[in-house]
């Protein structure tokens, strides 16, 4: 390595993408430094694992309460919230990435906030200026909160901090009807809270197929008593001596409601405030601008993970980190391909989708065929005593699967086969002719594929 630089490689951000990249670079025998200002492992571990663990607890509790129809005596069913929080901490401890583990793999760990002062130089809080030949920016994203005033004076929770409260609130207003908003809403509703969701779009889950949002809203309303206000935009949070107030616009009118707890689930914004301009790295409101090899506008700097914008998931962060590392090491050019990545909403019933939505195809004026198969068409609905949901498939005229969406038990596992089909262009006829266990939810895939092929 040239004596001009302190390190060959520097990875900024020790979230999922940063840890994967730094580890792979170290395993390739390179001198790599990993810089992190907060927690090693980042929000991927600190947020996703505990959130999912507690959401699963909520679903289990709710199912147990409903299981009286199966013969379970659940009249006196209770939960102990401190024990629930202890479970969350255990999950976090097991999933956490430690500095020691990283150093054992050959990664030099540096704690501090990094800020580019040039294209090869970074100033790190408490460490002075450090240089590297190549950089990977993996600084992730943080909760977005633009357009709402009062956030610096009124306390609010985020989907991450919502699962860390000492006791569940009695009443909560969730701002944002996307995936994390709905997951949080269901979690609190299952624990007995009164929940209201406020969403600016005309339905819940506006980025997923329309039918999924409709079924979700009906389920949340009828089963859990969740109130949903769509086409409603929160403009301010206020606080007085009594409680918090949420100011929102609905039907052109400004209205106010008093709440105990507010959860802001309005999506996330890429963390780009690290002097990128000094390094010649371009970015916009979505995130850092990269080419298909994840190289930025600075030739020696790449980016990976949530800082790129787009859907956030640990698997996507891992994938982008792997692609960036291959290209940084100069082992030929590998291009990014997001086809086949699922979007999963950890509600109960679970939601999973892959590929294109019907709305996107309509927008592009592309011809397609679709089918929607309710859960009740498969015997798993009888044995599991659950019928709310469906599987939707969208294909082109040549029998190629373009997209799929499911709301139902084990949706993510059922969807995996369709993700494979979307990514690798496996024709529907092959899916339809593959044996599927008739007593499992995956049988829906065969039923839907056959229905789509025969209905022309």
């Amino acid at each position, binding site marked *: 390595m040239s004596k*001009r630089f302190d390190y060959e490689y520097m990875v900024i951000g020790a979230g999922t993408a940063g840890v994967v990249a730094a580890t792979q670079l170290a395993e390739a025998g390179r001198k790599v430094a990993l810089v992190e*200002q907060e927690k090693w492992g980042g929000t991927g571990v600190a947020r996703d694992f505990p959130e999912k663990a507690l959401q699963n607890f909520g679903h289990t509790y709710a199912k147990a309460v409903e299981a009286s129809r199966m013969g379970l005596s659940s009249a006196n069913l209770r939960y102990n919230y401190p024990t629930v929080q202890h479970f969350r901490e255990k999950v976090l401890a097991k999933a956490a990435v430690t500095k020691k583990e990283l150093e054992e793999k050959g990664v030099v760990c540096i704690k*501090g*906030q990094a*800020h580019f*002062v*040039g*294209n*090869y*130089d970074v*100033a*790190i*809080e*408490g*460490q*002075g*200026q450090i240089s590297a030949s190549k950089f990977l920016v993996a600084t992730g994203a943080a909760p977005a909160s633009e357009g709402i005033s009062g956030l610096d004076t009124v306390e609010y929770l985020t989907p991450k901090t919502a699962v860390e409260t000492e006791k569940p609130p009695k009443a909560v207003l969730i701002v944002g009807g996307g995936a994390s908003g709905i997951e949080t809403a269901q979690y609190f509703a299952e624990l007995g809270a009164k929940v209201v969701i406020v969403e600016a779009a005309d339905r819940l889950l506006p980025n997923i197929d329309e039918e999924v949002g409709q079924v979700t809203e009906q389920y949340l309303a009828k089963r859990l008593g969740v109130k949903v206000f769509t086409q409603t935009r929160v403009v301010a949070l206020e606080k007085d001596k009594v409680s918090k107030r949420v100011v929102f616009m609905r039907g052109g009118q400004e209205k106010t409601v008093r709440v105990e707890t507010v959860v802001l689930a309005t999506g996330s914004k890429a963390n780009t405030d690290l*002097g990128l*301009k*000094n390094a*010649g790295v371009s970015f916009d409101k979505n995130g850092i601008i990269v080419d298909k090899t994840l190289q930025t506008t*600075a*030739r*020696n700097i790449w980016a990976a993970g949530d800082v790129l914008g787009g859907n956030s998931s640990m698997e996507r962060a891992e994938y982008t980190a792997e692609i960036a590392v291959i290209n940084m090491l100069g082992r030929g050019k590998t291009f990014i391909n997001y086809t086949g990545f699922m979007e999963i909403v950890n509600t109960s019933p679970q939601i999973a989708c892959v590929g294109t939505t019907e709305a996107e195809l309509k927008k592009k004026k592309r011809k397609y065929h679709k089918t929607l198969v309710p859960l009740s068409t498969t015997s798993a609905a009888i044995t599991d005593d659950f019928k709310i949901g469906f599987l939707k498939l969208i294909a082109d005229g040549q029998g190629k699967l373009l997209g799929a969406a499911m709301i139902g038990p084990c949706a993510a596992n059922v969807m995996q086969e369709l993700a494979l089909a979307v990514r690798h262009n496996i024709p529907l006829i092959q899916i339809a002719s593959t044996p599927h266990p008739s007593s499992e939810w995956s049988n829906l895939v065969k039923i839907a594929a056959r229905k789509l092929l025969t209905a022309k």
Partner: protein
Amino acid sequence: MAKAKTERKKAKAITFSKKLIVKDITLEAKILGIASGSAEIFAEKVAEKVAKWAEKRESVTEDDINMQIAKEINRYNKDLAFVYKNRGKII
């Protein structure tokens, strides 16, 4: 064909001063014809926010300070925010 080497560029780090920021903002506000009284008030608030932002950073450049001022000043005066966002570009 050999790839062109990227030239190593390093921006000059500057000494951060809240007083200088307040002075700079009030001067720019005066040029734009903004009332000096209100300019002084929001200049202090902006300088405070920028100081807080710069606290954790080992080194910052003049461009960084200008971008941060632009971001904070936007809620008070959009024209002034435009000036700071485009400093060095306006002829």
